[in-house]
């Protein structure tokens, strides 16, 4: 018996061993099993989609209808009033702000992280090990620790936001896009992840180019970066989404509503206009859409990225 088992391919074996005991009865059991699986999955899926369905539906209802009891799942009197009003408040600017900030953070991180990673992985220089250890050590530091000192640092950035040469007099980089973007322009974890990937690329590949007279920058740009494309893509998606939904940092440093990011704007909206649910829900839909679209387009890289950071992190 064992001899036959060994010859079979894994998938084949799988099917065989399941079918072996009895034919029809086993098929019935499998049917029951699938029915049970769907019996759990479908109600589960409803619990997960329900709130979104309600959000979208309610965003097309008049404010009065949103409060109706029983709740309306299909708007009886559909309207885009909420969206129109929301657009009129100037809130659309928050989305432009979010897009700008998230894009800047992503581009800067890809560039700065990969440059650092390249140096750590493929170049020899005095101080490499201690510097890399320092980067590694800060991976564990929660952002809440640096947030208060960074607030005070931003406030004293010289020659910015009305500050003089010594960082006095103005508000520095507080309440500015630069203040939103710069502290997040490089990430220890990003450097680490890219460096680990670059270590797996054989030196010979780079040396061949160097022998041909390529400068170190060309080696980085024309050989290393193209080879790192999968990791870069995964980190780009994560960085973008994290930056898009960052909340605490914008909450702390921004006070001008014109500079609000989408999550901050929405949260402030909840606090100020407790009654304007139509607008709020429309805004929530608008804030969610870009994320869902990015996810749908890059789903494969995204799931791979999750898995990669899960296994290697």
């Amino acid at each position, binding site marked *: 018996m064992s001899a036959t088992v060994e010859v079979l391919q894994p998938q084949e074996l799988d099917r065989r061993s399941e079918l072996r005991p009895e034919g029809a009865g086993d098929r019935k059991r499998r049917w029951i099993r*699938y029915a049970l699986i769907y019996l759990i999955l479908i109600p589960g899926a409803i619990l997960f989609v329900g709130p979104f369905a309600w959000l979208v539906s309610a965003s097309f209802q008049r404010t009065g209808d949103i409060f109706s009891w029983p709740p309306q799942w299909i708007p009886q009197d559909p309207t885009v009033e909420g969206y129109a009003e929301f657009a009129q408040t100037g809130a659309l600017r928050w989305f432009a702000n979010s897009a700008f900030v998230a894009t800047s953070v992503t581009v800067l991180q890809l560039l700065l992280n990969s440059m650092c990673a390249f140096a750590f992985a493929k170049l020899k220089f005095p101080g490499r090990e201690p*510097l890399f250890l320092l980067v590694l050590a800060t991976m564990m530091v929660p*952002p809440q620790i640096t947030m208060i*000192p*960074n607030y005070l*640092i931003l406030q004293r950035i010289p020659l910015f936001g009305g500050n003089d040469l010594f960082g006095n007099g103005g508000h520095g980089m507080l309440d500015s896009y630069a203040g939103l973007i710069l502290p997040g322009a490089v990430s220890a974890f990003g450097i680490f992840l890219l460096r680990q990937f670059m270590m797996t690329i054989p030196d010979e590949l780079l040396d061949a180019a160097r022998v041909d007279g390529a400068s170190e920058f060309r080696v980085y740009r024309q050989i290393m970066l193209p080879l790192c494309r999968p990791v870069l893509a995964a980190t780009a998606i994560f960085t973008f989404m994290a930056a898009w939904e960052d909340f605490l940092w914008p909450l702390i440093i921004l006070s001008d509503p014109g500079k609000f990011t989408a999550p901050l704007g929405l*949260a402030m909206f909840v606090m100020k206009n407790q009654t304007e649910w139509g607008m709020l829900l429309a805004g929530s839909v608008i804030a969610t859409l870009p994320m869902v679209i990015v996810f749908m387009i890059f789903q494969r890289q995204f799931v791979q990225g999750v898995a990669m950071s899960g296994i290697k992190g």
Partner: protein
Amino acid sequence: MAVDTARPASRTRPSGPRRVPAARRPSGSRPSPTRSTSLAGRMGRAWRAYLFLSPGLIVFSLFTVFALLFGFYLTFHEWNLISQDKPFVGLQNYMDLAEDESFLKSIVNTFYFTGASVPITMAIGFCLALLLNQAIKFKGLFRTLFFLPQVTPFVVVAIIWKWLYNGDYGLFNFYLLKTQLIREPLLWLSDQNLAMPAVILMSVWSGVGFSMVIYLAGLQGIPHELQEAAKVDGAGSWQRLWNVTIPQLAPTTLFLLVMGIIGSLQVFTQIFVMTKGGPVERTSTMVYYIYEAAFKFYEMGYATTLAFVLFAITLVFTWIQLRLYRKADL
């Protein structure tokens, strides 16, 4: 031009530098430039390395390294944002926090949140991953649906749930009343005993998708032969689950546990949007309390001290988990 010839990895990899045509080698230099040991060569290379590092390291040293040191300095000062003098107070901040009942309460709340939300999220994520790892139809669709909350901005999730929990017209009360599970509408977020469970439920809902995807990746990494061997040995599906699948997924579980705990200790957004720490501090978590200390009362020194306590707690947890990791030899 020349660089392009080196591009295809498969062609260059097996033979390495030896395949570089002799004619292209700069005369007099060694075959492999990385092995050049002349001082000038080494310094030249180091110089370039620092150029590559500098933009990132400047940002990193200011906003991470210096910020940490400055933060440590702050903990020894009474640093009020508004008052002019910021006197050195030694360990006063550290002594104050030991007697700050609101802060101690926030630690308890944070542990409550973490202790409930992390295991529940992982368990549900694991079950979903098991189900979705079967050969069933619409696998991709289900996976996307369960992952949807993960791609939704967290503030939006909090807004939706704040609505669902609404005492007067929330969907929860409506369906619970309709199915007669409750007689009176519940005031989810303003009931002292319900507020934290409500926040936990919402956090579980939004976090399950992540656990599921990580577990799915882990499940796919289990060698097929192991399951087969167990099957040949006559192990039923429950036995295989207990003795093959779960032990094989230990690294995945540990990763989710570490990430989950670190993340949950920092819970903030849902508190800020949904409860503001209330009712009567029942949902006031550490980061929320730190936020209030710093940006409502402007006590930057004291708030930073609290943040260092959070850091210490995080480190202790991570250390324990990494020790477990080593012990289990994963």
